[in-house]
């Protein structure tokens, strides 16, 4: 049988049509998952933009034409302040001054304040961007029929007042200043603690004990596992250790601070430090591993000690990549929400964090809080806050990636 098969002439036939068709289809089939992923990203971004810009109908309880002649946007800061001083009660002015003195507020904040406090403007109807673009005319008539005196305008929820205002009970006056400062404090503390620890651990694993000792292997395994621990468990750890066990320290009571408990910026920052530590270590390890060995040998050759070699040759050569890794760790930390909830982020904070022992809120916490509120307008504020967060993270990541590419080219 076998010889029979061998003597048969062999011809290169064409590919069977069904095989060829399958091959062609497969490319399309596999690529469709990329298309779905890209579509998902596009829809996600559009959903957020759709909510961050809306068409609103507003009503003034006090007729603004009786108080000012020109549009409110053309008024100067002093005019706005005098308008407030003339029309608000002394008590109200005192409360406002206690939050932030009027003269220290910016134009956008004052305009908003005049609208809400003097004209008592309120939003009576709000439609998302997509609806507004598609059916502007019919929505306009719909608003006018229900509220004849309503003023119709497009509103961007993300504006200067939003960035500079603190949290508020009214969605249209709410802002993210305290949340952004809280995030900045937390990530600053986290990186100050985690960066030296992370780089040191990487030096230990790559330079001193490169896969030699049992301890180094245990530490390596441990870091790999820590990287996979759900972030919420870091929050639980932070709650037990920083907030509770170290409460007297983290509340600052030992140093004369009057915080009620350990749910402070420093606890959140330390928790975040533990969370980004494995990422920092892994990135730094890769950076140190990429340093050519000839550099070390040359340094030893001229009689340098191990630490001199590390400090004067290995670290400077690895530093740019280590810093790129640090930027990526920062952007990871900025988006983390769950651990901060557990450690005790407050959701309603109108005062800037002043030190290590302040209560805190953070940008993602604010987004979470606004998303879960029943009023639809808070969803718009949440979308605006998300835009700020995404722009921040994307520019951080882009900077890291561009820097990395730049380094590769120069090598």
């Amino acid at each position: 049988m076998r010889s029979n098969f061998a003597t048969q002439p062999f011809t290169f036939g064409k590919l069977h049509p069904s095989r060829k068709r399958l091959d062609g289809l497969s490319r399309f089939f596999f690529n469709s998952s990329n298309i779905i992923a890209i579509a998902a990203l596009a829809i996600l971004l559009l959903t957020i933009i759709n909510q961050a810009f809306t068409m609103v109908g507003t009503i003034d309880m006090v007729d603004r034409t009786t108080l000012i002649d020109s549009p409110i946007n053309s008024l100067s800061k002093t005019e706005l302040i005098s308008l407030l001083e003339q029309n608000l009660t002394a008590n109200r002015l005192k409360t406002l001054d206690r939050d932030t003195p009027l003269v220290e507020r910016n134009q956008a904040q004052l305009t908003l304040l005049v609208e809400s406090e003097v004209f008592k403007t309120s939003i009576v109807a709000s439609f998302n961007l997509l609806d507004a673009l598609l059916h502007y005319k019919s929505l306009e008539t719909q608003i006018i029929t229900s509220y004849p005196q309503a003023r119709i305008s497009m509103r961007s929820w993300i504006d200067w007042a939003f960035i500079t205002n603190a949290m508020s009970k009214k969605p249209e006056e709410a802002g993210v200043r305290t949340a952004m400062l809280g995030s900045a404090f937390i990530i600053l503390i986290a990186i100050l603690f985690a960066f030296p620890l992370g780089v040191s651990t990487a030096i230990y694993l790559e330079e001193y004990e490169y896969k030699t000792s049992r301890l180094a292997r245990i530490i390596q395994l441990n870091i790999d596992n820590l990287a996979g621990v759900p972030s919420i468990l870091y929050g639980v750890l932070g709650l037990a250790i920083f907030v509770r066990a170290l409460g007297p320290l983290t509340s600052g009571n030992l140093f004369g601070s009057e915080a009620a408990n350990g749910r402070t910026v420093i606890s959140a920052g330390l928790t975040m430090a533990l969370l980004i530590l494995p990422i920092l270590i892994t990135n730094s390890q890769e950076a140190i591993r990429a340093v050519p060995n000839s550099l070390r040998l040359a340094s030893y050759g001229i009689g340098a000690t191990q630490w001199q070699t590390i400090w004067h040759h290995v670290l400077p050569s690895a530093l740019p990549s280590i810093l790129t890794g640090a930027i990526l760790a920062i952007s990871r930390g900025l988006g983390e929400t769950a651990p901060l909830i557990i450690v005790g982020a407050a959701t309603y904070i109108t005062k800037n964090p002043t030190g290590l022992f302040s209560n805190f809120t953070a940008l993602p916490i604010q987004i979470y809080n606004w998303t879960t509120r029943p009023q639809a307008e808070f969803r718009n504020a949440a979308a605006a806050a998300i835009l700020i967060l995404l722009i921040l993270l994307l520019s951080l990541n882009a900077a890291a990636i561009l820097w990395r590419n730049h380094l590769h080219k120069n090598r």
Partner: protein
Amino acid sequence: MDIYQPVNIKKKRRISESLIRVLITAAAMVSILTTLGLVYELGKESILFFSTPGVTLREFFFTTTWQPSIGQFGILPLVLSTLITSFFAMLVAIPLGLGAAIYLSEYATSRSRGIIKPILEILAGIPTVVYGYFALTFMTPLLRLIFGESNVQIYNMLSAGLVMGIMILPLVSSMSEDALHAVPGSLRDAAYGLGATRFETTTQVVFPAALSGIISSIILAISRAVGETMIVAIAAGSGPKFTFNPMAAAETMTGYIARISGGDLGYDTPDYNSIFAIGLLLFFITLIFNLISRNLSRKYREVYE
């Protein structure tokens, strides 16, 4: 005269050198301390939890009501909804992630790789709270439109699960792509030499060769889904409920921890201790998945390097 004197190259003892080494070793121990602290705190509070009168291991693992305030501690509803959301997440993430990985590794030109990979990286870099917002404001209304408002509750596990799948997709695709990439080119060349098409080469030669790495990525993805918090906290609903209906609201393990500790939580209450017991369970589940994944991915590296 001096020139004939032998240079003394005997090892000099340097105190600073040893001191630095001690400091660096101490820094390296912090990560060990983190793990020890985690296990110690979770264990200690869990023991307190199980020594609360009325709480038994048997009740914890085999009863279906979780109501700490009235003394009912059955963790099954929380575990079940964690399983359901993770199941739907994997339903999205596995096929899409593998498809993307195969396309990028076997089909894509370097130009299209240069476009697709950064987009997947952006998807991976979006914070989970944003995905939660997306689930609540887009996915849930979409599901209610498709299946009817009476069938789909405002908070439901399906929506959270599907969006979680999108979140996990880049993890599956990038790890699987690495595994596919590690398959040596000679294997592909051999298959092409036999007259196989690209599709046949991919599915019958490259994919099986990379299987352990691919499974490793899937297992890691499951571990990520089980530990994911914000999407389920926002979109899956609050209040533990034992239900198999994915269109109903039910709280997951992580969702419960987030909700309970969101308010002002008194120390040493059953509520407080219970988050540590659930945390311990969560820790072991993810640890086991991570270890399996790590061992599998080491396996394929050993074969081809």
